[in-house]
């Protein structure tokens, strides 16, 4: 059986787990193409105005799978992936949002993934889903391999912050995985920074353990996993950074508040922060100009030993 996976939202985080698990269960996995203009347009046509860009893209990817004749689509309802945390309301209502947008001939495969009570419950969610397709022993070993693939992938990204060359600018690119890793909707910002000779850090390069430790500086525990990652990564890498680029999806509730926490921290710590809001109207040229201006500022700050203010105030009073 062929099963389609939309290349959007949590796919960017969990593709090793999902593809391995589904394949082990006997499916042939088909991932939708990398986001393009057509996919985005489809997504916009299928969404309510107020939805965030990543959700619109997701619906476009679902359409792309439908157009290519896929009959089964993997649209999990992810409530939580970590104890006491949530992803976001859209992710909790995802199958119900998608359901109305696909023709009746298409079936959604929508396991409930809920790790709000902890990792054990998370694993149980996958196990329960797998049992529909195989015996307990088979599913358990499939799941083991799937989690192993995920772990291998996650660990392959981790880096030692001090191992990067000192003479280059170090920037932390903050943002949901599905923004940072999607070259189309993020206007390829990561590549653009890298080709400008900047060393780009992302939250994915910091291990879960370090993130947990670093994010405990928050007086109230963050209940969005993405927000916890952002705050934790910033705290962990703080000493190595010349600046921050924060990507946010317009209309994302989590991004709007986490963005403010990050911006405030940067402001108080005198670290330049470029905040970029992404929606379907974001233009490439304007983005390039902003990035160039930001990098110029960072270069000058380096030359002048941080003598330049990061947030518009004059440091020199004479």
């Amino acid at each position, binding site marked *: 059986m062929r099963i389609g996976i939309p290349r959007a939202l949590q796919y960017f985080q969990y593709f090793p787990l999902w593809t391995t698990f589904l394949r082990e269960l006997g499916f042939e996995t088909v991932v939708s193409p990398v986001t393009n203009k057509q996919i985005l347009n489809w997504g916009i046509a299928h969404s309510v105005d107020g939805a965030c860009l990543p959700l619109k893209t997701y619906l476009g990817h679902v359409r792309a799978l439908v157009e290519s004749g896929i009959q089964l689509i993997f649209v999990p309802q992810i409530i939580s992936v970590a104890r*006491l945390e949530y992803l976001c*309301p859209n992710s909790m*209502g995802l199958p119900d949002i998608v359901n109305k947008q696909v023709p009746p001939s298409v079936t959604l495969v929508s396991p409930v993934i809920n790790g709000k009570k902890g990792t054990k419950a998370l694993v149980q969610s996958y196990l329960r889903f797998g049992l529909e397709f195989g015996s307990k022993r088979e599913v358990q070993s499939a799941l083991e391999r799937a989690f192993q693939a995920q772990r291998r992938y996650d660990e392959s990204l981790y880096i030692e912050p001090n191992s990067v060359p000192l003479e280059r600018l170090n920037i932390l690119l903050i943002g949901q995985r599905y923004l940072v890793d999607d070259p189309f909707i993020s206007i390829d910002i990561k590549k653009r920074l890298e080709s400008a000779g900047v060393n780009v850090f992302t939250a994915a390069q910091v291990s879960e353990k370090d993130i947990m430790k670093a994010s405990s500086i928050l007086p*109230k525990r963050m209940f969005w996993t993405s927000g916890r990652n952002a705050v934790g990564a910033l705290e962990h890498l703080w000493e190595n950074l010349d600046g921050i680029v924060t990507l946010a999806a317009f209309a994302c*509730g989590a991004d709007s*508040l986490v963005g403010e926490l990050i*911006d*405030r921290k940067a402001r108080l710590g005198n670290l330049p922060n470029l905040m970029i809001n992404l929606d379907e109207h974001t233009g490439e040229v304007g983005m390039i100009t902003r990035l160039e201006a930001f990098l110029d500022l960072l270069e000058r700050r380096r030359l002048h030993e941080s003598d330049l203010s990061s947030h518009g105030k004059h440091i020199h009073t004479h």
Partner: protein
Amino acid sequence: MKVTFPHMGNIYIPIESLVQGMGHDVVVPPMDTKRTLDLGTKYSPDTTCLPFKIIVGNLIEGIDLGADCVLMAGGTGPCRLGYYGEVHKGILEDLGKKVEFITIEPPRGNNPNFWPQLGKLFEKTNLKRFAGGCLLAWAKLNACEELELLALVVRPREREFGSTSRLLKQAFQQIKKAQSLSAVGKFREESVHAVKGLMSTSEKEKVLRVGLVGEIYTVLEPFVNLQIEERLGYLGVEVYRTISLVDWVKNHIFKQGIGLRIDQALRRSAAGYLRGFVGGHGLETVARTVDLAEKDYAGAIHILPMTCMPEIVAQAILPQISEDKHIPVLSLVVDEHTGEAGFQTRLEAFVDLLHRRERCRILG
């Protein structure tokens, strides 16, 4: 301490009694105005939702009137309301306003300051005094809500234009001032009687009935929803408000407090459309819209703040309910740029549509 808190409809009336029961002075911030909104918009992050911004405005205005402590509601997600407090705190701090910031939320081990703060809140009171405050607050909440709901029935049938709202305003002031349960009871009874007397014909007269669903703050705060209930009333529409604070307290504090589940009925109603909680009032919106259709309401109006995540999930699902259950649904998104004229035009057009539909139905 001198305590201030954000507005949401008439909730300041019971909250005042509650906080007095804790032995503190109360600074009720000025009712929401353009100034509140301007202050809030100025000092809030751009992309956050309207309730966040107006609450910032409330808190600044309250602190400027002398409050030294802020009381806020918190939460455990995924709606961003749960993290409002943490960001509000930073904004007030950056403005140089030194206040105690207390967030009331379910104690789920995610906020280490919870118990010490609660201690501070209760250090000046004793059980008897606090219980008295609670009872008074509960009586006031019930009285206010009864009058508000009654007004929704009376307004489309009032003899003299605007008389219901005028009378209501006085009644709320009397209830606010009342210091004993018996006084609240007396004002409640008198006002109910007086409001009923404003009706021209009997309650039975058929008018269009429309349900109001959506995000709790936008449904309950007239400044944010541009007095939608009054506007509809003047268009001859009886509004049914699907969100009740009295029920909210009963469900979330009384029932959930002793560990009962509260979302079964909602899940039942929403079955086939939404499978469960999505934060905020998303599930309520979907479930209540189904209920409205089944109870034969002429239409449903869905009101939400721009970028409200749970309501966007609901908004994506409502067209399907509308189609399946034959109920017209109007989604109204509000933010700081919402214009009055455009809002009114949309309401009028919607009501016209409902009237036509009714006529066609009667004529077969």
